[in-house]
């Protein structure tokens, strides 16, 4: 079912998290696929994330054109099952900036109340 919302609409929180995780993995020069993305979210977020939720969100972001994926061979332990490697599209970069920019603008001036966020 194609999504009715346009790519310019603000992203959901978890979608932003997944996009940022893909960027982090790519930044390290590694291949961004399901497991590595999930590991990234879990290690940074500090709490377990449902595998299904990650895959569904990845599918969704790809449908929206914010991510693109290709099949690539993986290590032998996968037994011929391809890895699905993700890349962030230009639209994806725009979407992340938009969402984070909105958050940053909303947040500015509240530092005394919110304190250190990292």
């Amino acid at each position: 079912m194609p999504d009715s919302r346009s790519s310019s609409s603000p992203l959901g929180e978890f979608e932003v998290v997944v996009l940022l995780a893909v960027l982090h993995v790519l930044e390290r020069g590694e291949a961004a696929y399901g497991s590595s993305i999930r590991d990234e979210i879990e290690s940074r977020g500090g709490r377990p994330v449902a595998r299904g939720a990650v895959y569904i969100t990845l599918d969704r972001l790809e449908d929206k054109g914010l991510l693109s994926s290709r099949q690539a061979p993986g290590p032998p332990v996968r037994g011929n099952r391809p890895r699905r490697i993700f890349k962030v599209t230009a639209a994806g970069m725009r979407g992340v900036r938009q969402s984070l920019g909105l958050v940053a603008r909303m947040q500015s001036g509240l530092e005394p109340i919110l304190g250190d966020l990292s």
Partner: protein
Amino acid sequence: VKPWLWPALERRLRRALPPVRAASVAGDLLEDFDRRCRRDGRLRAEWWLRREVRSTAAAYRAGERRGPRHAARSRRGVATASPLDGLMFDFRLALRSLRRQPALTAVIVATVGSAVAANTALFSIFDGLLFRPLPYRDAERIVRIGTRQAFAEAQLASGAAGRNALIDSLETSPLLVERTRVLQGLLFEDGAQGVADLDLRPADVTPAFFELFDIEPTAGRVLSDEDLAMPVDPRRVMIGYDLWQARFGRDTGIVGRTINLPGAMFGRRFLVVGVMPRDVRFPDGAELWVVSDERPGSFNHARLAEGVTIDQVRGFWPGLEVTTLREATRPEGAYALGVLLASTGLLLLVAWVQVAALLFARAAGRARELGVRLAIGAGRRRLIRQFATEGALVAAGALGLAVMVAPAVTSAVVTLLPPEITRGHGLQPDGRTLLFAGALSLAGVLVLALAPIEIVRRSSPLGLMRAGGFSGVGQGAARLRFGLLAAQLAITATLLYMAGLSAGSFRAAGLVELGFAAEGVVGIQLPPTTLVGSTSVERRAHLDRQVQRWAETPVALRAVPGVEAAAGGRLPFHSSVYFGGGGLPLSVPGRDEPIPVDYAPITPDYVRVMGLRVTEGRAPGHDELGDGVQLALVNTSLARQLSAVGPVVGQRVTVNRRDVTIAGVVDDVVMARPDRPVAPLVMTLLQNPQGGYVLARLAPDAPLASTLDAIRTALDRVWPDNPSREVMLVSDLADRAIADYRARAVLLGLIGALCLPLALAGIAGALSYATSQRVREIGIRMALGAAPADIRRRVLGRAFTAVSLGLVVGLAGGMLMGRLMSSYLFGVRPIDGWTIVGAAAVLILTAWAASILPARRAARIEPAQALREG
């Protein structure tokens, strides 16, 4: 390295995920699994993998393409698959489906509940009478010892020396470690007897009793040797728990107080030293215990030494009657109630079958629902779980009902039973019996609740939905239903037959020709000989006074208006030493073997009071009794044996170390139990009674209550300081003698009566169901010209096929049970024509009553409408 369960997991993934995705997700999982294997070990990694696959598949199923929020929610949805949540889900589902059919649910709960309650009541009674362990330490080592017979034999064989030797060996033998004497009733120092006509039952024991029975008082202390030395007024007593609760409100301050018990105890004063434990009512429902001294050889209860068996004791003293305490306290004929235990099992079975049929009808009504659920993928296990949950819910409701009702049912049954059987036993339901009856019934209910699944399983979902009933299943279901009904009717027939046999035995025992006119005869137990006084002169004077009073008693009674005659002699059906106990040897000149006989000293008027018929010789009058000649009467049974020697009248025989001349023969008289053959009896004639009983015959038109009052007044006058107030009606005693027959008849009748409504419901339910399944067929028949009467006949015919089948099987079972209980039957044979006819008639009548309504409803079916709807 792939886990062994991988293929199944991957299949699962492929089913839930789009094919394009499945391969890469599976690859990711394998990669992670590999890492985890190295980190956590294979076993844990496999657990992890299984969980991961399940949650991913579930997330995809529920939240596919719906965005993260839905995905997140679906994760909670996965969590409901945990066993506890699943149970709650089943529970809610079951509750909903039970609420949808409130009437049916109520019927099921009521049926099972009352069956459990009834069975709990019956089990509690059997348990209390037969199985409940006695509340004493090492109770199996406590024995009752009957010495009289052994003493009498020793005395007969070698006089007082033999008797003393036996007493010595009994008192010193290492086979027995503790000894006590327990008597029912209570003898005061002046010979007055505390009596049992009020609800107070006194017991007279030796101090060793409390040690032997290891009694821990509820309050105060137990009686001891010191209490023997204490003054006799007030007398020191222990009171029973029930008495303490009923009269003194469980006030521990009662200990050390002096109480007065008017009525039964002639206003004597008692000093309470302690309260007995709750479950001790020994002997025979006692509520008041006093101690008195023990004479050598008078003990009647003892504890076996460690490792000594009862057979060793029996072998050591052959003449001794040694019984375990359990046998001794078990009421007469209580073993017979064991047969009834089997019957209660049958009752349970009837209730189960009934419930199975009801649940089956429920399942039939839900065939369409089940078909739909099967079609949309409900697994067989899923449905079984739901049926089991429903069964458990019904069971819980039924058990709750049973817990509430069981105590009332138990006391109701206990009041129906003869007090001779139930007295002195704590016959109340407890957790044990409730659990037993409950577990039996509920296990059955659970199993039967699952039975419909078997049928559902074999049929296709489509068939179930289309047919909207089990007609799609074919003949199997109908046959099962019919079989259940026939089985139930068979069990009912068996129980009815057994009830009929017991009732017949009770009737026959009550109709036994007693040989005398029991109606209008009353008996009084006279105070026994006691030695009172400190010097021999005083004792002699006391005894003389006693003898004088014995002689005066019949005279005084004769003067009471309404009394026709009075005499001393044996009181029939009242426990006595010689009756039914093997008897005394009677030697006859010219015959080597002595004849064992029952023996009774009587005064001449006894023949008139009892209405004995003299068949030979004559009954001597008072004037014929001289010093030199002892005269006696014998009964027909004895006369038959004596006639082998010569003419009976005038024969001289020796009995009880006396030579007597037989003056006459009277008809056989039932003195002990109507169901036992009459023993040979010799009655020696005395001028005056010497202890024992005095009997009086009332005039037929004498008003009973006022005459009995007048008799009591007369007794008061003769025995001013210790009147015996217990005036017994011989007809009552005769009834009491067959109390165990009555108990069996009442209980089996009750069980049968409980089964009949169940049978009624079963037949009515089966016919209504069958009719509802065949509306279309009936419609066609009517459209083709069948008259309503034909339809009615067809429905009735169906019922009667089941009834005949049930009767054939059930009556055969009844005859088998009859053979098993043949030792409890009297006057009827295990195969009894009238009982067969009676049981069949009752069952057929029940079936007829049950079929009227369904048959009429079937006959009223409108053909056009039936065809349109069917």
